[in-house]
């Protein structure tokens, strides 16, 4: 008997096939890997760079076993050595097209990352060039295109949309907390193991195969995607035999335009499920005696986007069940030695807890070259455990200046607050979180 995942996959595929004729209209599924038929180059070189500056006051931890040391939330990644820094956040270059120009049905997409971020330098480790996208798309069937390789997974809007049209410098707390996956070996309970990342952040990508298609009817565009992948991050093989499944449905009223800034009103739902292998510490370090187990990781969400003339809006609600990233011990930098000298701070994960969050986002163009933005997001972490629950609220004010269609300047001011809602104000976690600084960021984005 087919399980729930299989039924959902079949239902979505059937819904897609039941729709009308397929089109080449642009959306995130189509834009990132599919070429216009008969009108694509053999190899089109493209990319973008994002130099940036970020700043917090650098307030140190005010309580707990690491009091007086750097607070991870007031340092700037990926190195976490400073509270203000210039950085090349992203520098990507790639080629895309149809390798055999007469065959429009076969497209490819290749992109590498050379910037300084969680992809190239996870946990502040050695940086290097990393493959972010390498996919081949087959457009042979009306009901379903087929994409194989490494590519963005169908899911939440912040992750799925092209990063070079992202309207802010930093992701919302909920997207960063439960969707931008960090791969670690253990749950962080061993007192002397920093439990650092064992590879690049997931970057909303996976290696696998995806069926998807877009259909147009009466000015509306309906899309679906079904994907199966390793669920183990970028440019490496799987670490278990369980595969992740990704489901996505969207419908959009098209107002006009084309490409990444096409105007329309879209609604979407998505679901992801997979297993993660984790070591649960039994002693003072992760050793062979520790217990290794698989834990289910589920994510789902529903959202909407709107872009029409001067106005832009987006909202999304995201739920996470299992593999909840739970910050670091005492809010310290992973590897930091406690003031008592008895333990080291580590990355932690709650493998069977839950989380949720949402955001509201508005943008308004006051001139063709200037857009003002405001975003409010909330992230409720570890909602299944009263003592561990944390709530993050961020109000981001932003402005974008467009030098031209491919170059812009982004400025953000983030008012950041966090608390442990089920603990008294005087509790150590609340004293630590009271020290969370606002964050200022400025970024140039240049696409070529």
């Amino acid at each position, binding site marked *: 008997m087919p399980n729930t995942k299989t039924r959902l996959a079949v239902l979505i595929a059937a819904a897609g096939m039941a729709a009308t004729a397929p089109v080449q209209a642009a959306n995130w599924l189509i834009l990132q890997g599919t070429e216009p*038929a*008969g009108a694509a*180059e053999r190899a089109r070189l493209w990319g973008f760079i994002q130099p940036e500056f970020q700043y917090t006051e650098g307030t140190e931890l005010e309580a707990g076993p690491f009091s007086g040391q750097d607070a991870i939330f007031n340092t700037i990644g990926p190195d976490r050595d400073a509270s203000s820094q210039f950085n090349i956040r992203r520098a990507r270059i790639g080629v895309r097209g149809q390798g055999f*120009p007469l065959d429009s049905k076969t497209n490819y997409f290749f992109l590498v990352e050379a910037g300084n971020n969680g992809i190239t330098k996870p946990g502040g480790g050695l940086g290097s060039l990393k493959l972010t996208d390498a996919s081949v798309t087959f457009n042979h069937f009306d009901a379903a295109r087929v994409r194989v390789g490494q590519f963005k997974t169908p899911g939440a809007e912040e992750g799925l949309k092209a990063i070079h049209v992202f309207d802010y410098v930093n992701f919302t707390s909920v997207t960063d907390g439960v969707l931008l996956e960090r791969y670690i070996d253990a749950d962080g309970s061993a007192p002397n193991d920093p439990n650092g990342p064992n590879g690049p952040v997931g970057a909303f990508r996976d290696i696998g195969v995806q069926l998807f298609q877009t259909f147009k009817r009466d000015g509306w565009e309906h899309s679906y995607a079904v994907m199966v992948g390793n669920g183990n991050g970028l440019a490496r093989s799987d670490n278990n035999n369980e595969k992740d499944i990704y489901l996505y449905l969207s419908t959009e009223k098209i107002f006009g335009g084309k490409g990444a800034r096409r105007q329309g009103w879209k609604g979407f739902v998505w679901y992801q499920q997979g297993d993660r292998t984790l070591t649960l510490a039994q002693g003072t370090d992760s050793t062979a005696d520790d217990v290794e187990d698989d834990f289910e990781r589920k994510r789902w969400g529903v959202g909407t986007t709107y872009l029409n003339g001067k106005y832009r809006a987006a909202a999304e609600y995201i739920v996470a069940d299992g593999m909840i990233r739970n910050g670091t011990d005492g809010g310290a930098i992973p590897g930091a030695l406690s003031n008592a000298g008895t333990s080291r701070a580590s990355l932690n994960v709650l493998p069977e807890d839950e989380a949720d969050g949402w955001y509201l986002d508005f943008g308004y163009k006051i001139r063709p070259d200037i857009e003002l933005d405001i975003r409010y997001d909330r992230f409720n972490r570890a909602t299944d455990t009263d003592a561990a629950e944390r709530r993050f609220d961020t109000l981001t004010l932003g402005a974008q200046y467009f030098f031209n269609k491919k170059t812009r300047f982004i400025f953000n001011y983030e008012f950041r607050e966090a608390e442990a809602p089920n603990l008294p104000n005087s509790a150590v976690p609340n004293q630590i979180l009271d020290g969370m600084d606002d964050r200022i960021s400025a970024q140039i984005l240049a696409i070529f």
Partner: protein
Amino acid sequence: MISQRPWQLRFWAALLIGLICTGALAAGNPDKPFAEKHVVLQISDPDPFKQTLVLNVAANLVKHYGPDKVDIEIVAFGPGLRLLLEENANAGRIDNLVDSASVRFSACENTLSKFTQNLGREPELNAHATHVSAGVVRILDLIDEGYTLIKP
């Protein structure tokens, strides 16, 4: 009442026939009897942007002169023939140019044979495409008829 003499009738009839013949022999498409400009556009480049460009040029000519006053034929050969493949993403724009301004599209059979050889099957062409034996010969013929060649 003044009666018309036979020589006057013959004169006017001859003049009318002469004018009709002159019009028929002028450059262009019989479907475009009022066209004042006759243009052949060449697309032979592999760059997909050239596809957009040649269609833009055709649309701009129609916009400037009006659909009845300009006679346009787009001749595709070499890598440029991809514009006239049935699946081409610009098919909607081709439909519009045909429907709104009777723009004609010619597809080179020599190139089509090469495409067929490379693909292992004959590719489907846009329904609006007319086969010509050789794109470059078609362009020369049109020039002889008084067309102006433009290669965007």
